[in-house]
């Protein structure tokens, strides 16, 4: 890209940079990033192929763009990078190599970004339209824009992932809550049922006690009566009139006790 008027040249460059930067800030995920780079990078630098590796621990985001408009996004691990890339990564020194057969040269830079993340930028260009040294400052800016965006998108992805995890957990929690509610309801109904059974047997028991007390008290009061009257009557009269009645009442009392016991047993059987 040769422009004779330097002012016009800078203007074009500035506009291209603004569009490049604005476009990248608009994209929503990493997969779209290479296509977006492809739209504006050709107005900034001369290249045949553009590779950008964003390295976060062992995981590498690989962006690839070529002059004909092809673009791709992939991920790989650090050891899958080629020897030249490895060399630049290890040394940290920018490097370039030229291939006589294809008449292409490769320039490569390693950048140290925030949060201890690295990036590796490779540009292949043909000798007919070579990468110009004066574009090196632009490369730094391009890295800054790309690394910041990737970092940002990774963060968004992480948050999204965590949100999904949270949503799954929330769903699981709601399901558990429903289970607990169902259990509670079941327990409540069991308690209500048991309480009503208890109330029922309580009232039966009350009835039984009342019945028993009357059943036993009636003959007992007669016996008490006949014992008490002893001092008020002549002995002969007591022996002839009362004593036979006394033994009858004692037998009544015995019968009452037997019946009370039998009723208690019936009640016991009904309850079990």
């Amino acid at each position, binding site marked *: 890209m040769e422009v004779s008027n330097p002012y016009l040249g800078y203007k074009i460059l500035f506009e291209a940079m603004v569009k490049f930067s604005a476009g990248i800030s608009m994209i929503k995920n990493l997969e779209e990033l290479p296509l977006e780079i492809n739209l504006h990078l050709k107005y900034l630098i001369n290249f045949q192929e553009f590779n950008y590796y964003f390295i976060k621990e062992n995981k590498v985001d690989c962006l690839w763009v070529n002059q004909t408009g092809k673009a791709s996004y992939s991920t790989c691990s650090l050891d899958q990078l080629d020897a030249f890339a490895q060399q630049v990564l290890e040394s940290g020194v920018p490097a370039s190599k030229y291939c006589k057969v294809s008449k292409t040269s490769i320039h490569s830079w390693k950048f140290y970004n925030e949060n201890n993340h690295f990036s590796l930028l490779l540009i292949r260009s043909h000798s007919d339209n070579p990468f110009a040294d004066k574009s090196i400052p632009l490369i730094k800016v391009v890295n800054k824009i790309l690394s910041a965006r990737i970092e940002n998108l990774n963060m968004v992805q992480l948050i999204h992932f965590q949100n999904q995890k949270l949503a799954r957990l929330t769903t699981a929690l709601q399901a558990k809550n429903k289970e607990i509610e169902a259990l509670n309801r079941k327990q409540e109904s069991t308690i209500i049922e048991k309480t009503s059974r208890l109330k029922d047997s309580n009232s039966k028991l009350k009835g039984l006690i009342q019945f028993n007390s009357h059943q036993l008290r009636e003959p007992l009061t*007669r016996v008490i009566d006949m014992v008490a009257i002893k001092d008020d009557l002549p002995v002969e009269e007591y022996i002839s009139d009362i004593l036979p009645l006394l033994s009858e009442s004692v037998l009544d009392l015995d019968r009452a006790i037997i019946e009370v016991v039998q009723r208690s047993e019936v009640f016991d059987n009904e309850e079990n």
Partner: protein
Amino acid sequence: MKVFLIDDQKITNVLNRKYLSMIREDLEIFDFDDPELAMAALETEKPELIFLDLNMPIVSGWDILTFMRNRKIEIPVIILTSSSSQQDREKANLFHNVFSFQLKPLTKSGFNELLEGYYLHGDYKTSL
């Protein structure tokens, strides 16, 4: 004075009759172990005092009290029961001719007090 003893237990009637005749000689005592016969005799004999048991089969003491109320038979009644239920005591209060509620057994001194109370207070309701 005519007195009715109404209790399905013959023995109780025998004992109560003995006590009453020990205390006063001028009492004309009628005892009933069948409450239905007592009910029938109420209007013909017109007793002045009734000793009434509550728990009786077929016709209960309550039935007799209700019968008297319906027929407007105003004879003072002393309830003699072996039931210590507070409910019965409160229910008895609703019959204004019931002037005493006594728990069995009632001995000679108990009968004595009741009769004295009956003779002393023309307004028998006060000794309930």
